[in-house]
């Protein structure tokens, strides 16, 4: 096969067996790869009702047909499994170098089943594979594990592993690759930990064969040529200030979540903005494989209280641990980010959960004695200390390790958790960016910006500006962006480059650029319609999985704070999110029933059998 490797590695940890399987070319074409391939496998093999932390759960790590091909930002893979945080599906996605190395080692995907009796790691070396003992690595941080495994296997090997948080099944534990890149969300690291799988180590030198290398090269030359020309005139904001530069935008739109989403503006925002990060702690930027942008932040903090070195923070981390907790100490946010990376945790859920705990304390629903320390708004030291305690499930950290929904529910106030499907939101208040509310509520993984990000339309004017406060007519572009994200995630690309450079500049989002890359790489002769349908197929099959797991329209929800409490001040003052109205429109656009169930006609059209 071209583009794809045509091989899947099947790992049964209960039996300690690993074997190769063929990838059916028709499945590859219909589901693309990555996220699509993952959900196709899970829908076929996984009981949606299973306990996510039991051996019955299955975890898929899947690259896409463009991963490692040299297509710009073709560096990504997806981790698909049943989420211990939401009880639904995961779709955690990461870049760096590991996904390309995995594909060069000979496989499109790794499927992990069962549970090992003792800690193990998987070593894949250019088509050879074995499970190895990992007892000596248990308890080690992600950085220590990565360094040790490169020593044990190959200095050029790439490592994806869990830290202590994954071992202790923190419900939002991440799988970290290349030390500081995270398949961060929904607790994929806890699933890996529950399987006693400490790491996957890959080394590959096999070239990925392209169907039409000349056409691929020519198109790449055009796209990158245009990108570089534009970059000469318009400096690339993402390269200069990283994603954290978004703070300036969200603050001035009044959608920067502050004080556990009680406010949309934060007085201390300039102290935590990307520009400040660039001035203070940035050492250099970094890029994933084949990425012309380089939004990664290599940083270093010398302040003895928060000293450290690593990568980050991203915008989402800055919102969750900064404004959301009213912490304007950037060094503390960076330090808490380092701890999350080293212990292997999602920074969004971590920060949002601490912010929620601060409100629970503020309102008298948790006593500080129970926490064992003070926990007031803006307490930078508490942020760092509680992050560490959560990773090890120490003391009150054991409660925080369950995420904000379970924490708030245990205090009798689940409405104070800013979640959808029990997963915490990224940093855009939907009261001032209406379609973001619809995207959070209908995202298959719960609160997320990566499974469809209408902030691009509403706040960044990409590919075309849209009135952020209007809710009528938002369903169609939200649906289009979600379908598009499904294609991007499945192909192995990154949304940052793709939305700006590989789609037609219209709200309908026609993925013409991706189509060109896909056909040159795979030779599968997709039509534009087939590619768009593949995106819809992924979304619909994910929805089917959720319905079988017990989700209904009532789970496509936002907390009352978003839909009933008007924003108190700032540029979004007076607005609530009109979710219900948008939902009706959305289900109609999707050809789902008013309860959010895909109709048999829709499924038949996409060739999905229940």
């Amino acid at each position, binding site marked *: 096969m071209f583009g794809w490797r045509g091989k899947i590695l099947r790992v049964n940890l209960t039996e300690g067996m690993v074997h190769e399987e063929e990838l059916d070319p028709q499945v590859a074409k219909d589901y693309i790869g990555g996220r699509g391939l993952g959900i196709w496998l899970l829908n076929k093999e996984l009981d949606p009702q299973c306990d996510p932390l039991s051996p019955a759960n299955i975890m898929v790590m899947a690259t896409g047909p463009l991963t490692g091909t040299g297509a710009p930002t073709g560096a990504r893979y997806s981790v698909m499994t049943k989420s211990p945080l939401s009880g639904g599906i995961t779709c955690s996605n990461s870049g760096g170098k590991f996904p390309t190395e995995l594909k060069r080692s000979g496989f499109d995907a790794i499927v992990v089943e069962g549970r090992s009796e003792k800690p193990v790691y998987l070593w894949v070396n250019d088509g050879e594979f074995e499970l190895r003992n990992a007892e000596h690595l248990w308890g080690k941080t992600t950085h220590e594990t990565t360094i040790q495994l490169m020593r044990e296997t190959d200095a050029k090997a790439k490592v994806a592993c869990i830290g202590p948080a994954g071992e202790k099944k923190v419900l939002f534990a991440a799988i970290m690759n290349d030390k500081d890149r995270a398949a961060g969300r929904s607790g994929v690291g806890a699933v890996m930990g529950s399987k006693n799988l400490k790491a996957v180590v890959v080394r590959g030198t096999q070239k990925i064969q392209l169907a039409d290398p000349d056409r691929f090269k020519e198109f790449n030359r055009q796209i990158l040529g245009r990108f570089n020309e534009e970059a000469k*005139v*318009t*400096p690339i*904001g*993402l390269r200069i*200030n*990283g*994603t954290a*530069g*978004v703070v*300036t*935008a969200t603050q*001035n*739109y*009044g959608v920067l979540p502050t004080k556990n989403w009680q406010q949309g503006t934060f007085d201390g925002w*300039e102290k935590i*903005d*990307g*520009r400040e990060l660039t001035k203070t702690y940035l050492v250099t930027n970094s890029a994933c494989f084949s990425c012309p942008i380089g*939004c990664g932040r290599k940083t270093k903090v010398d302040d003895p209280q928060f000293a450290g070195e690593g990568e980050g923070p*991203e*915008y*989402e981390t800055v919102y969750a641990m900064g404004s959301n907790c009213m912490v304007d100490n950037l060094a503390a946010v960076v330090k808490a980010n380092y701890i999350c990376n080293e212990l292997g945790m999602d920074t969004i859920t971590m920060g949002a959960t601490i912010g929620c705990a601060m409100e629970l304390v503020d309102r008298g629903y948790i006593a500080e004695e129970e926490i064992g320390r003070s926990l007031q708004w803006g307490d930078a030291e508490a942020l760092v200390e509680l992050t560490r305690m959560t990773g090890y499930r120490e003391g009150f950290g054991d409660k925080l390790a369950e995420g904000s929904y379970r924490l708030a529910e245990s205090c009798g106030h689940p409405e104070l958790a800013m979640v959808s499907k029990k997963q915490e939101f*990224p*940093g*855009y208040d939907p009261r*001032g960016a209406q379609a973001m509310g619809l995207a959070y509520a209908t995202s298959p993984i719960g609160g997320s*910006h990566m499974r469809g*990000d209408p*902030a*691009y339309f509403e*706040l*960044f*004017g*990409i590919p075309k*500006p849209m*009135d*952020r*406060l209007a809710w009528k007519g938002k369903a169609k572009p939200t649906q289009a962006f979600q379908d598009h994200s499904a294609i991007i995630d499945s192909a192995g690309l990154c949304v*940052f480059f793709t939305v*700006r450079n590989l789609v037609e500049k219209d709200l309908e989002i026609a993925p013409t650029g991706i189509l060109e890359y896909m056909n040159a790489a795979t030779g599968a002769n997709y039509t534009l319609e087939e590619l768009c349908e593949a995106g819809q197929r992924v979304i619909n099959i994910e929805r089917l999985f959720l319905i079988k797991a017990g989700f209904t329209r009532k789970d496509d929800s936002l907390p009352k704070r978003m839909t009933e409490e008007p924003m108190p001040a*700032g*540029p*979004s003052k007076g607005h609530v999110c009109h979710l219900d109205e948008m939902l009706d429109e959305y289900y109609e656009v999707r050809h789902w029933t008013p309860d959010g169930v895909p109709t048999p006609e829709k499924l038949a059209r996409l060739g999905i059998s229940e």
Partner: protein
Amino acid sequence: MAFLRRRSWQGWESLSDSQKMRVNVKLYSELKRYAPGEDTVFMLEYPPGSTVGDLLDALKISAEVPRFILIDGMLSDENSPLTEGCTVVLFTPVCGG
């Protein structure tokens, strides 16, 4: 008195009160350097009918300089009208998350 249609930030003193429109301006990120004085948050006065384009001209922010323009928290452009008491925020474009 002759109506002076000077729309630069230096010219506002020439307008009578009824002809003045107060506009709050905030410059952030790379656009801070275009502030007329030391303060990057300031107020200007313009005659009715002025647009963001007039403001950009006055601040010498040429068309090639990448910017996001927000008027009272809404994404706007060069042709957007300025209104009495509005707040115009200018900053370098961002995206991502």
